């Protein structure tokens, strides 16, 4: 597997400009002769599909939802970063670049991150032009806030629903193109495999989720914008349908999978309340601005919060990190919460949370001010838990939230398969080993609106694309294989439901490849996962038939791929014998329990090549060079 990142030469400030000039253009009149498949309609997919159609390409767009607007980008709460420096507080493209490389714990590509920071400016302009109602000051100018511990205010937001508003902007741009006939939209259509012809990505195989029809769709290039794989943990903040199938199938067809072990655990989610729990709900991180995190000093303390005097409480973040306190970065806050719960100091009925207490802020600022800041979050919390945070402290616990790993892409966002592009959370992205708050929305839209439309043109302009149709041998082979796979799932007729197996898988991955990872645990997971996968393929029960709407069958197909993906996740975590960002290897920590990177051995992206289901994949590396931001140890004490 050849890994040529194609990073352009020149100074970092000039790379993207010069590169765009060097890219080949497709003549305006010829664009309609080229077709592109876009899988997924979240921020990256919807913005990419709309932008390509505006340029004149024929676009075919796919979503397993009933409408493109349902994509999980819609659930992002906090905001989107841009280096506008509207607050005159010293922000710049260079500072956003610097913060992102550092925040990613020096495991991202500098050139990509710089481009992302440059484009952040255009994104805000574009969204405002589309009518995204960002928060504004009384002056009428755009409002910003500081987010996730950033020292400048560069986050744009629309109440607690920024993802929704940005997605609706992109969705409306897409809807306009669908109305104009330049995008053909296939809702309730799930991609189940990739089609390669002569080594190039030329199509996909899909299943119509209403009729069950399995068929192929062909084009000159394929783009995957299918999001992350946090649901490998079963319980995560991702929507129920989020899955790894599209990128996993591409991996099986030859696309390199980079850094699967970089998963982000968000510190402020509502803890699990029982075995029936179907997903976890995130509470915006902004709550940590005024809430104080604590647990009882004594393990097994069953008293209610008011009964526990100040002297018997442990405000552990304030104690360990006096300068950042409750605003310590996500990975640190998460790990310390786990530590407290593991020590038996967890709170709530299931002893599986820590307190996030607003008592002190309420006394200082009053209910009105706190209500203005967090009213909607307090309501949401009360709706779910039945507890009123104005009266009793919230209970929170970390939950899987975002995956920085994904398919490897070069500077053009093209994977190791020619003609296969990967954008948004689905690629291994510009976040390195850890993503900063409010950067996911920025990356999704940068890829879709402003990078892919240029780089894909370069590929299309150079290629001669032989005509293929659904009768082509390669096409029929993949279609047949897919039909057989789904038939197999229906025919096992065992004793266990898909969810029960998925839960069990999730627990293994969470226990051994969650917030803390070690050699012995990962090896145990790598023994247990194949056994459970084997049980899945022999004992799963999928009722119903394949020729109608069958939600159990949809789930079964997705979970089958999670079983394989989980193994790669653990394998990558095992191979990376260092701690960095969201990946914490217990063997690699400092004396006081902080993550220890190993730049000498691991300053690279690990890229896995598929060699067969029961065979070990091959690990390749793309070395990372840091010319501008010199690797340093993060310190938040």
């Amino acid at each position: 597997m050849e890994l040529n990142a194609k990073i352009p030469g020149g100074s970092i400030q000039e790379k993207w400009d010069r590169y765009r000039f060097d890219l080949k253009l497709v003549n305006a009149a010829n664009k309609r002769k080229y077709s592109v498949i876009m899988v997924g309609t979240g921020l990256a997919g919807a913005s990419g599909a709309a932008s390509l159609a505006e340029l004149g390409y024929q676009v075919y767009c796919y979503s397993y939802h009933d409408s493109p607007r349902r994509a999980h980008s819609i659930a992002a709460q906090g905001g989107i970063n841009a280096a506008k420096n509207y607050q005159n507080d010293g922000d710049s493209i260079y500072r956003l670049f610097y913060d992102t490389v550092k925040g990613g714990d020096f495991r991202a590509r500098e050139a990509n991150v710089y481009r992302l920071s440059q484009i952040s400016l255009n994104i805000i302009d574009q969204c405002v032009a589309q009518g995204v109602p960002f928060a504004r000051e009384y002056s009428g100018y755009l409002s910003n806030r500081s987010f996730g511990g950033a020292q400048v205010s560069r986050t744009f937001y629309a109440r607690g629903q920024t993802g929704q508003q940005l997605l609706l902007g992109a969705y409306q741009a897409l809807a306009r193109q669908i109305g104009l006939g330049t995008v053909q939209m296939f809702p309730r259509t799930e991609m189940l495999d990739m089609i390669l012809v002569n080594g190039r990505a030329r199509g996909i195989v899909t299943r119509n989720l209403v009729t069950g029809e399995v068929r192929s769709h062909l084009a000159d290039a394929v783009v995957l914008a299918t999001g992350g794989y946090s649901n490998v943990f079963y319980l995560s903040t991702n929507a129920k349908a989020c899955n790894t199938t599209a990128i996993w199938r591409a991996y099986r067809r030859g696309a390199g999978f980079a850094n699967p072990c970089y998963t982000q655990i968000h510190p402020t989610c509502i803890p699990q309340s029982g075995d029936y729990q179907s997903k976890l709900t995130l509470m915006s991180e902004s709550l940590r601005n005024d809430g104080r995190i604590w647990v009882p000093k004594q393990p097994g303390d069953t008293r209610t919060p008011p009964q526990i005097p100040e002297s018997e409480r442990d405000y552990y973040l304030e104690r360990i990190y006096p300068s950042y306190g409750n605003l310590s970065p996500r990975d640190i806050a998460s790990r310390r919460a786990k530590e407290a719960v593991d020590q038996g100091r967890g709170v709530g009925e299931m002893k599986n949370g820590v307190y996030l207490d607003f008592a002190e802020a309420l006394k200082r600022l009053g209910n009105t001010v706190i209500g203005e800041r967090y009213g909607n979050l307090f309501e949401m919390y009360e709706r779910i838990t039945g507890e009123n945070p104005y009266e009793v402290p919230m209970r929170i616990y970390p939950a899987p939230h975002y995956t920085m790993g994904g398919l490897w892409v070069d500077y053009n966002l093209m994977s190791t398969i020619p003609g296969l592009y990967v954008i948004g959370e689905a690629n291994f992205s510009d976040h390195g080993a850890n993503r900063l708050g409010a950067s996911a929305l920025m990356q999704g839209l940068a890829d879709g609106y402003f990078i892919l439309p240029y780089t894909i043109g370069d590929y299309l302009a150079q290629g001669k694309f032989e005509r293929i149709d659904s009768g082509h041998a390669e096409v029929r082979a993949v279609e047949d294989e897919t039909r057989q796979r789904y038939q197999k799932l229906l025919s096992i007729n065992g004793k266990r439901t898909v969810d029960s197996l998925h839960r069990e898988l999730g627990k293994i991955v969470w226990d051994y490849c969650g917030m803390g990872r070690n050699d012995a645990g990962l090896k145990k997971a790598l023994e247990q996962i194949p056994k459970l996968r084997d049980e899945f393929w022999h004992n799963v029960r999928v009722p119903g038939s394949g020729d109608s709407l069958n939600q159990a069958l949809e789930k079964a197909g997705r979970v089958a791929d999670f079983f394989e993906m989980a193994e790669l996740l653990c394998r990558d975590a095992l191979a990376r014998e260092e701690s960095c960002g969201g990946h914490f290897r217990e063997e690699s920590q400092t004396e006081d329990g902080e993550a220890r990177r190993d730049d000498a051995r691991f300053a690279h992206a690990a890229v896995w090549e598929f060699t067969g289901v029961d065979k070990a994949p091959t690990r390749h590396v793309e070395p990372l060079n840091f010319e501008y931001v010199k690797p340093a140890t993060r310190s938040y004490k």
Partner: protein
Amino acid sequence: MLINLTLHVWRQKGPKDNGRFVTYPALQINTHMSFLEMLDVVNEQLMEKGEEPIAFEHDCREGICGSCGVMINGLPHGPNPMTATCQLHMRYFKDGDEIWIEPWRAKAFPVLRDLVVDRSAFDRIIQSGGFISANTGNAPEANAMPIPKQIADRSMDAAVCIGCGACVAACPNASAMLFTSAKVTHLGLLPQGQPERYERVQRMIARMDQEGFGNCSNHGSCEAACPVGIKVDFIARLNRDLLKAKLCGAGTPSAV
């Protein structure tokens, strides 16, 4: 706390099947569960018996994606105001309750299976004009045009619509006016939305009619059912724009 319930659930194999209520016990339901988690538990039991699970639409389970939504005892999204089905928790039900669960009922939302309906008509309403035609790259500098905070806030009040379809299900005329007016208002209040303002409202209303939705007769059930608080005031605003366009030719060259 654990409670026992009796569910009467609409089961329908496909668009052409007649459909009927089927009664299922839901036993030992933890009151911390969400309504959809309760259905998950019932479905797990059905599947363990080899029966097909109840199909229902859902995804984010945080009340924002707009996928979920069923009639619960005749009310879209159930008894709690400002709450989508996924955010309704079982603590609002009592031991021994009977619950009737049905799909949205509207000609423009045909049932696909059980509780799943086809809401693509909403997408086609948006495709007909629910956007601002700003191609990627067209945009001027974001702060070049200040927008009064009150206007931006009001626009946001309308923009929060999640497109779930509860308004249609609640309306005796199965009208999509609340949904359509939310988009017309969101875009029509903003300066960027002015160039297409009158064209937009006419095209969206024409499409709404074509899809088979009824008109608004001011019942207000839509507002009561809306899980995110979209107001009927927006329908009044839509009607004003529509009248200005139809009667006074607003937006046409002669009116300039």
